[in-house]
């Protein structure tokens, strides 16, 4: 960040491909950004969707120009997570405007708003730092609706003189929002969690839980080695196969089928999915020799799927903290009991 080339935008370490030019403003030069996503942006998005470098996918905070903006052009506020920023600039194709990027430490708008990093203080600070009052003649900021948990429109107006207009939830609706004279329809104000949204988050779920699944598989492979004839690792492949089947069920199948699995509590949805898995694998005689071992694996599979489903509350778009705490109090002890009882059954089943 040494010798900054822009007064209003922190200097990127290298010239980014999406900065296509620069324009003069009363507050100095402002980089102009492209609205077309290149293969580079698409691959970058794919990487973070697979949890690769997700915490360093950032762009420099500051002011950017889109198209040929004037002092009357609207100002759109965004986060410095590049995926958020890319959605916005892509949606602004054909629009002349300004984009004011906040420093949210590389976190998307909604999550950053929950933490308060996308918030009143950072908006006021960024308005001052970018000298926005000199760049535009109006005093309006279009803030994404999902930024609202961190932003008080009243306080922003009091502290920097700019009034906040909440834009639509999804950047793709911005062109219609602008056409409707800065009005969002009820549909634009609604957060969805459609199949394609749920599929998009599956890879991150699987990557995040991979390590825990691996540790658990190794542990269970070792514990399933006891038998009357001594110790051996003949059962290890089954342990790996079963733990990773549960991992796939909890991390991919549950998210995909979420609205179709009965029950409101996520942990209970996980129980149904886990029991389903138990029945399928049990019928296929894949849970092992002997009733006790079979029972043990059934309990463990159900516990894993239920636990992963419970944790999917954080990824979903509609769970409340009070609700999650309520279901955790009941679910986590039961999951632990099922997992420990299941492990005991496997060890005992081998020895008997």
């Amino acid at each position, binding site marked *: 960040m040494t010798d900054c080339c822009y007064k209003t935008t922190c200097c990127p370490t290298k010239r980014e491909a999406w900065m296509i030019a620069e324009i003069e403003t009363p507050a100095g030069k402002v980089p102009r950004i492209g609205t077309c996503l290149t293969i580079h942006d698409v691959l970058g998005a794919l990487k973070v969707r697979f949890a690769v470098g997700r*915490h360093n996918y950032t762009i420099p905070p500051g002011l950017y120009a889109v198209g040929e903006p004037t002092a009357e052009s609207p100002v759109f506020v965004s986060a410095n997570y590049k995926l958020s920023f890319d959605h916005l600039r892509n949606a602004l194709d054909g629009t002349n405007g300004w984009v004011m990027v906040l420093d949210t430490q590389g*976190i998307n708008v909604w999550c950053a708003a*929950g933490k308060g990093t996308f918030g009143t203080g950072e908006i006021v600070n960024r308005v001052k730092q970018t000298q926005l009052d000199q760049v535009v003649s109006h005093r309006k900021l279009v803030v994404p609706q999902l930024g609202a*948990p961190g932003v008080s429109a009243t306080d922003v107006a009091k502290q920097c003189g700019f009034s906040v207009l*909440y834009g639509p939830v999804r950047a793709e609706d911005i062109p219609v929002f602008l056409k409707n004279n800065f009005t969002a329809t009820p549909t634009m*104000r609604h957060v969805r969690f459609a199949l394609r949204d749920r599929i998009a988050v599956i890879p991150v779920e699987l990557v995040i839980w991979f390590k825990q699944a691996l540790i658990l598989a190794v542990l269970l492979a070792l514990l399933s080695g006891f038998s009357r004839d001594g110790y051996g690792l003949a059962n290890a492949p089954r342990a790996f196969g079963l733990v990773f089947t549960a991992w796939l069920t909890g991390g991919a199948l549950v998210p995909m089928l979420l609205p179709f699995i009965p029950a*409101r509590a*996520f942990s209970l949805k996980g129980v149904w999915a886990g029991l389903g898995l138990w029945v399928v694998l049990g019928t296929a005689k894949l849970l092992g020799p002997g009733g006790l071992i079979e029972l043990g694996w059934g309990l463990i599979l159900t516990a894993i799927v239920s636990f992963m489903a419970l*944790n999917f509350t954080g990824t979903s778009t509609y769970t*409340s903290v009070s609700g999650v705490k309520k279901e955790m109090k009941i679910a986590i002890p039961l999951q632990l009991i099922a997992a420990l009882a299941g492990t005991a059954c496997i060890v005992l089943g081998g020895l008997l």
Partner: protein
Amino acid sequence: MNYLKNVTTLKIDTETCIGCGLCIAVCPHGVFALADSKAHIIDLDACMECGACARNCPVDALSVDSGTGCASGIINGLLNGSGECCCDKGNGC
């Protein structure tokens, strides 16, 4: 998609409400509607306690114990004593 019933801590003080409609604009789940120049809760169980309405209400007519409905965040918070956090597992937790 509906989450647990009767858990949300959201409350509205209709007396104080001035009917500005900002809560309707910021709510991502259509919890509120305007009637007789006042905001009313029409779908309480849809509330996810994000806190956007209470944060933006100009007359403090709304209250909610807001937070992130995320089991991993709550578990991490309990384990690390660092408070609840979410979304960016491994970062800032």
